[in-house]
């Protein structure tokens, strides 16, 4: 099913407020929601067809709420969302035909059925013709490397195998948009590598699926995503490529100069002269070797002058190393900045 929209996922002022129950429901049930909670706040998102888009954010940022609204499991309070052109509220049946969902939740299968029986059931729900189901199941099992274990009971699967089966299930209806909500949450490094390989294959395959990946693992987003959005407190606080994020925050690479022949006071003088930020001066061995760590303000880089002044003050440069900022550090900076 194809539509004319150029965006696979598009939201306009999408908002979700969880409200405490009222009336008779307030008396009959205890809700965890005591007051209005703004979980998603006017999110505007445009994900192009074939794009791998990362949703990053701390716990409780609103990523899962956003995905639940996009996958029709949760009704937005206001705003709109379209999947391949279909409104997720008004055309939810059509929207569900173009999506696949993989969560980090192991409990979404029948534990007393085999992997194949589970897929057989969900294939039936995906309107796949009965005669085509066995072939389709073999195909997706092969794709995720679970063919050998297909006839084992689901409860005997390892966490990695369960997650692979979840991906296989999401591929049954050949979705245009694949939502991956923390797919590597509880799996080991080998399974993580395999899952990342599937995602790359899906993104680069003939069908060029759109993938929306919500994750805590920043290196995963850096490796897999064309663009990312950082979500905090229900709002998007950054949207762009990882390169753009680095550019935005990139003037603050950290330098580590190891020197001797100059004391802490000398280094402090240099630091004060150039107004260096994030400065740390340590004398780790107590043997006269000083580790002088600093970064420059955005746009300036007087490294040569700093080194010359250390030498002029009697110091010897033993090493000088530029430490490029990791995505994780930038993520912490941007989220902390938003919190402050």
């Amino acid at each position, binding site marked *: 099913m194809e539509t004319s929209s150029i965006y696979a996922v598009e939201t306009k002022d999408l908002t979700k407020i969880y409200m405490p129950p009222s009336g008779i429901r307030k008396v009959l049930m205890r809700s965890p929601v005591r007051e209005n909670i703004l979980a998603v706040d006017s999110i505007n998102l445009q994900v192009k067809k074939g794009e791998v888009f990362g949703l990053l954010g701390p716990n409780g940022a609103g990523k899962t709420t956003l995905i639940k609204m996009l996958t029709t499991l949760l*009704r937005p309070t206001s705003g709109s969302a379209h999947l391949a052109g279909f409104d997720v509220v008004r055309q939810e049946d059509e929207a569900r035909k173009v999506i696949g969902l993989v969560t980090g939740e192991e409990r979404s299968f029948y534990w007393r059925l085999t992997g194949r029986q589970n897929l057989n059931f969900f294939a039936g729900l995906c309107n796949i013709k009965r005669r085509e189901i066995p072939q389709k199941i073999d195909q997706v099992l092969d794709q995720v490397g679970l063919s050998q274990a297909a006839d084992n009971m689901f409860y005997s699967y390892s966490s990695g195998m369960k997650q692979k089966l979840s991906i296989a299930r999401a591929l049954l209806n050949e979705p245009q948009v694949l939502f991956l909500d923390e797919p590597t949450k509880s799996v080991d490094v080998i399974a993580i590598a395999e899952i990342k390989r599937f995602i790359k294959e899906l993104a680069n395959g003939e069908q060029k699926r759109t993938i929306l990946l919500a994750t805590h693992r920043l290196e995963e987003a850096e490796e897999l995503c064309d663009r990312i959005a950082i979500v905090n407190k229900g709002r998007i606080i950054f949207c762009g490529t990882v390169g753009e994020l680095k550019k935005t925050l990139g003037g603050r690479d950290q330098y580590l100069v190891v020197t001797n022949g100059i004391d802490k006071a000398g280094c402090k003088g240099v630091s004060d002269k150039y107004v260096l930020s994030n400065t740390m001066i340590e004398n780790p061995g107590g043997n006269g070797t000083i580790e002088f760590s600093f970064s420059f303000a955005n746009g300036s880089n007087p490294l040569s002058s700093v080194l010359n002044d250390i030498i002029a003050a009697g110091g010897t440069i033993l090493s000088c190393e530029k430490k490029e900022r990791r995505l994780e550090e930038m993520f912490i900076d941007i989220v902390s900045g938003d919190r402050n």
Partner: protein
Amino acid sequence: MIFNKLLTFVTRDMHIELSYRFAFAMRFVNILFSVASFFFISKLLGRSANPYLAGYHGDYFAFVLIGIAMTSFQSTGLGAFSSSISGSQSQGTLEAMLVTPTKLPVIILSSSVWDFLFTILNILIYLVVGTLVFGADLGRANIPVALVVLALTVLIFSGLGIISASVIMVLKRGDPVSWLFGSTSSFLGGTYFPIAVLPVWLQWIAYAFPVFYALRAMRYAVLNGASLSMISGDLLALLLFAVIIMPLSIFAFKQAVRIAKIDGTLGTY
């Protein structure tokens, strides 16, 4: 397409049921013991129950067999939908089903098909064991009329079951509908005894429960071979219950889904 979906759900439930083989076998052993118990109770009562059972040829054993059969359908209708919802919520499979192109009403209705099929199998075994092993006399049964009564009964109790599932979807536990109709109707409806033995004021309350009309109509159809016209009063009452309950159940279910989707509690339990 709908048939394929039904088949998909039945296949799933059959595989799960058969994976607990011992429990599956024990169900049928239990039926044998249950039928045998009522057979000997009927021997104990002997002719003493006859004045109350005159309208049913005085055979308590056949009377109670029909009562058990109908109560089983009532229990299935009342419980299958809500247990399908709460089971899927606690297993975590409900949300996985809801992101497929299958609509929620189809999921709920299809999830209960196995329960109804299994109930039919149970009832058939009850009746076969009751007639062939213990000699219950069901020879006068008017099967087409009995099927009409059964269809109306299943419709009414499925409606009540859908209302019950709606309550479960929103409140998660504690369902007044099943409690009201499940616990009171076997007493007031006359599953194990004719309501003529009850005080008059209790008999009046019994008239408010559909199970009373369902049981009486079914017993007349099976034990007396009654025609449609002979039980038209009971059929009319059942039809009236169905006309009221079915639209109410659809409304309640739509509201429950709307509330759960707004609250974000569709998959929680």
